[in-house]
């Protein structure tokens, strides 16, 4: 469960260039849900995801993810919190000098998994995103869609309970975008909670999932039912 209650976020609070990214944002997403987070560029979608991933601190309001109340979460527990999430970005940052296998294996190495588990899980994740044959390739040898698939494989390899996607189809053509979205739907069908941010409303046509629409840092729609 993800709970936002009257959350506000101001960037550069101590400077003259202070800018409110989010204001009075409240919503609640149940476990296993698939939610679209939409809005124009700069509406605050990334800020919501960064707050969920605890990469930012809210200026006001409270955030709860699962059992964790972020107001009382000590910094030393943040890495473990992030290990329970998968995060996919618009341009999935990959390690250029490492193979696809190594890129996908990174969360498992961080999590201290044994080698056999790493080999098995990375192989399975790459198969799942259709890159089983590209394990040895370097990121520079991949297309944009393949790079994004590597990012998704890396996000799901540790089998997180929550998957955050920040414009994962932003740089891809419509056909590949649909494939990528389909992958997220498959993970959701397996029980993973997905928060999928995209400004591309056309991509989301035909899906009957709850939507949170942000306009200038505020929720424009009614929040989904608790």
């Amino acid at each position: 469960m993800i709970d936002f209650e009257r959350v506000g976020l101001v960037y550069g609070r101590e400077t003259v260039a202070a800018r409110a990214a989010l204001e009075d944002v409240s919503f609640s997403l149940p476990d296993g849900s698939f939610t679209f987070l939409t809005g124009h560029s700069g509406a605050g979608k990334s800020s919501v995801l960064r707050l969920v991933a605890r990469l930012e601190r809210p200026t006001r309001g409270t955030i709860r993810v699962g059992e964790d109340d972020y107001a009382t979460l000590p910094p030393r527990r943040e890495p473990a919190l992030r290990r329970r999430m998968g995060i996919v970005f618009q341009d999935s940052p990959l390690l250029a000098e490492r193979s696809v296998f190594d890129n996908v294996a990174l969360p498992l190495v961080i999590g201290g998994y044994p080698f056999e588990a790493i080999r098995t899980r990375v192989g399975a994740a790459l198969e799942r995103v259709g890159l089983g044959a590209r394990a040895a390739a370097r990121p520079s040898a991949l297309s944009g869609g393949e790079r994004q698939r590597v990012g998704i494989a890396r996000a799901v390899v540790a089998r997180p309970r929550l998957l955050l996607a920040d414009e994962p189809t932003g740089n891809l053509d419509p056909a590949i975008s649909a494939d990528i979205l389909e992958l997220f739907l498959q993970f959701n069908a397996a029980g993973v909670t997905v928060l999928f941010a995209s400004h591309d409303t056309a991509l989301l046509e035909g899906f009957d999932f709850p939507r949170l629409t942000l306009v200038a840092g505020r929720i424009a729609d009614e929040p989904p039912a608790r």
Partner: protein
Amino acid sequence: MSPRRPRETPDDDGIGPRWSYGRGGYALAQSLRQLAARPVASTATLLSLGITLALPALLLFLSAPLEAITARALEGESLTAYLDPATADLDGAALAAELAARPDIRRTRYVSRDEALATFRAHRDIDDSLAVLGENPLPGAIVVHPDTTALGDRSVETIARLLKGLPAVERVQVDLDWVRRLQATLSLARRVALLLGGLLVATALLVIVNTVRLELVRRRRELELATLLGAGAAFAHRPVLCTGLLLGGLGGIVACALALCALLLLRGPVGELATLYGSSFRLPLPPPGEPALVVLVSTTLGTVAALATLYTTSVRRTAHHPGTS
């Protein structure tokens, strides 16, 4: 210079060696990969470190042989305490034995009045003069050979003062001016060596700090990514510590190799010089413990430099982002 792309072969499955997927192994593999990715820069750094640490290493390797030469040169030196003529031979011999028990005295020899007279009589001219005097005018004496350590520092003056303070001693002859000069020269040389060694070690420290700092900048993207994926500070810091440790250790090995080469080059000329002075002295190779000590110290230096870099970087980051931790 752009990093070389790792080779891909048809049987390359993209999986590295098993050990490189453990947390410690990953850090080591990352550091080795960074060093290998820029071979020219890495070699230049290691050579800078090696050359910087080679002189302190050479000084260490030479210190024991130089101490041995000094000790050998000082071995025959002695102080002579002339006793009151009224002192009986038994008392004189007992005093000599008592003095020999001191830790700063290597040995003593009691020269009785009769022995002194016999020695003098060996010289024909003096023998004639003694015959005129009738009775033996020579006092008994104790020849004191200080320990070489005592000769090496200033405790020889302490021994002289001790002898002068003894009731049975009438006069003390100290002919050790050259020893004092040698002591002063050695003391100066030690201080210069320490100063030079300290400066060079500090230089090595700065070289490692600079290299580690550059690596932190190069790996910023990777560190940010690791943080996003749930890495804690230990995971992010381990490869940096590993790099410091590797640079220090490898720099120490290069330094030892260079110092040993220099030592081998010096051996011949030093041996020839010693032969000219009638000595059989040869410059020995250092015992294995000394190169090991150099590598240990330089590895520690590398680790300290990496820790200092991480500490200053994290302090600066905290200062820039007081709201985050």
